[in-house]
């Protein structure tokens, strides 16, 4: 029997199942339980948007509320990961990385290398990313390129509830540090999600839509936006393939290149800011490794080189829309 779950509930279920399977899996974060030290109810929040609601009652010893000290508790998760635990630290919004990045990029990401291969750091850092919530410049960023740039980190950014569950389970079981980015504007999106636990391997893109004329490569919220563009273009007779990267590091360039070799045309869609982005990364690797297959310039569709504006009127323009994506596809078709 198919069962439908929202991305938010899929996260909850993955955490629940992994904490059940393995008591060394612990969760840490601000108000992930809620009400600590207060007179009212237990489990009063379950995270700022309720993602971990209910988990405390099932796993009271594995759920730890933290003070507002990201550097200390993210670092503690990392330290604990080298001591036999498998912590999942929640950073609430990825925008807060600026107060704890050292622990992530100079510590977790580099231990194994600096220590000559003699360390494992199975830590997951979960955070919400992305625009569309009218949350303005400091609560709406993608920042995916920054983490992808850093050797030693794995970076995941799923586009649907099914992938989210499988990728989060993989992230928890993975023996390397994983940055797990959840697009807050996808939390409510639903799809069929099996009840039993399953892991989706990292570094395997999924083909969200098959097509033969143009390849769109993207991830996160831009997957539904690209699929919407593809629907429009279908009516114009343009058959678009949409590749959902799912993990940005490792990245599945094989699937991308295979597709480009079929279509000869590439549009990279990225909600991140344009400079040194995921879009440039894919484009550059195709221009190096599959240049001969290209029939047209590679187009990139990204957010502008600006912070995320507050006003809905502007934020809606900031996020790459199906219209802008469709226009870029048409351009590669010479239309």
């Amino acid at each position, binding site marked *: 029997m198919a069962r439908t779950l929202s991305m938010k509930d899929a996260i909850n279920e993955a955490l629940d199942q992994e904490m059940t399977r393995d008591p060394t899996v612990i969760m840490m974060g601000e*108000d992930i339980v809620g009400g600590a030290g207060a*007179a009212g109810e237990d489990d009063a929040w379950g995270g700022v948007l309720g993602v971990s609601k209910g988990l405390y009652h099932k796993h009271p010893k594995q759920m730890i509320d933290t003070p507002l000290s990201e550097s200390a508790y993210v670092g503690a998760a990392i330290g604990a990961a080298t001591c036999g635990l498998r912590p999942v630290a929640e950073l609430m919004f990825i925008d807060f990385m600026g107060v704890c990045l050292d622990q992530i990029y100079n510590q977790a990401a580099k231990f194994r290398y600096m220590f000559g291969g003699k360390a494992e750091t199975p830590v997951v850092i979960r955070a919400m990313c992305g625009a569309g919530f009218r949350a303005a410049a400091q609560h709406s960023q993608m920042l995916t390129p920054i983490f992808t740039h850093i050797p030693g980190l794995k970076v995941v950014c799923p586009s649907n509830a099914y992938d989210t569950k499988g990728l989060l389970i993989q992230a928890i079981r993975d023996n390397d540090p994983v940055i797990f980015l959840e697009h807050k504007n996808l939390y409510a999106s639903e799809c069929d999600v099996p009840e039993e636990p399953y892991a989706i391997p990292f570094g395997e893109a999924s083909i969200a839509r098959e097509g033969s004329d143009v390849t769109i490569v993207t991830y996160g919220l831009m997957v539904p936006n690209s699929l919407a563009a593809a629907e429009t273009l279908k009516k114009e007779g343009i058959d678009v393939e949409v590749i959902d990267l799912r993990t940005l590091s490792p990245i599945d360039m094989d699937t991308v290149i295979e597709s480009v070799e079929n279509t000869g045309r590439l549009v990279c869609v990225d909600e991140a800011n344009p400079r040194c982005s995921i879009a440039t990364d894919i484009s550059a690797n195709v221009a190096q490794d599959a240049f001969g297959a290209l029939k047209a310039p590679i187009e990139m569709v990204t957010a502008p080189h600006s912070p995320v504006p507050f*006003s809905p009127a502007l934020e809606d323009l900031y996020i790459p829309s199906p219209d802008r994506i469709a226009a870029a596809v048409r351009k590669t078709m010479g239309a």
Partner: protein
Amino acid sequence: MSNPFPLEKDGLLEAYRRMKTIREFEERLHVDFGRGDIPGFVHLYAGEEAAGVGIMMHLQDHDRIASTHRGHGHCIAKGVDVKGMMAEIYGKATGSCAGKGGSMHIADLSKGMMGANGILGAGAPLVCGAALAAQKLGHDGVGITFFGDGASNQGTVLESMNLAAIWNLPAIFVVENNGYAESTSVDYAVASDSYVDRATGFGMPGITVDGTDFFAVYEAAGEVVKRAREGGGPTLLECKMIRFFGHFEGDAQTYRAPGENEDNRKNRDCLKIFRAKVTEAGVLNDAELDAIDAEVMTLIEDAVAEAKAAPLPTPADLTTDVYVSY
């Protein structure tokens, strides 16, 4: 009857006006947010007015403050235009930040307001910079950073306290201790029982006051601001206070004790306490205060109406203001 208060009548009226403006601004946002008129995250300052106003009554435009995610009260107390603020929260081109900032980023440098801030604790270093600039430029401005009990555990706040102390900066660290960080109690999250001890650990004096008592805040802040202006260095000032609403709009507040909000409204409302004190002392009368109430209601009403009618930013605004020149 003689005036037992540290402010003349004018000053008392002004303080009341500011507090009342904040209160009505927030009460109105609460309603309008509930109605779906307002986008985004909104954190209300209602209940905490005496702290912001008690402090800001000592400041001028060349004094700088850095605020928090819960910034409306600080803005109003520091003199930021209420209509611009309302338009900002509505995401309009006429807003304080042209609609680009929203509730969590309202700023007006011309009024010495360095911005609400979506990042906890981030104002502390900024205010050290403002205080350093005052020192270097040779004026008597002070810098005040506000942060909550939760944010008092941010490394950047703690580092800044040390920095301010060793440089003897005219900087003031105001802990707005409303007992909660989101849903988490200060008793859980802050290791020390006393912010005075924490101040001592960074070589600066610490003072704790009842933040629901305008006069307690006003007097403590007066001393602290004076010391900073005169080169006496930084202070930590803890205001114990309450927030009337949830952490943000939409918070079910199940972490509170039963009846907590009602009790707060009834017994710890800083506006009621202020009104009782000044009227009982016979320095102000209800009619004078009611008149202010009426003016404030009109102002808020107008602010909402103007915000609703105001134009949206235009598409061209999306990419301006990233740089001075690029």
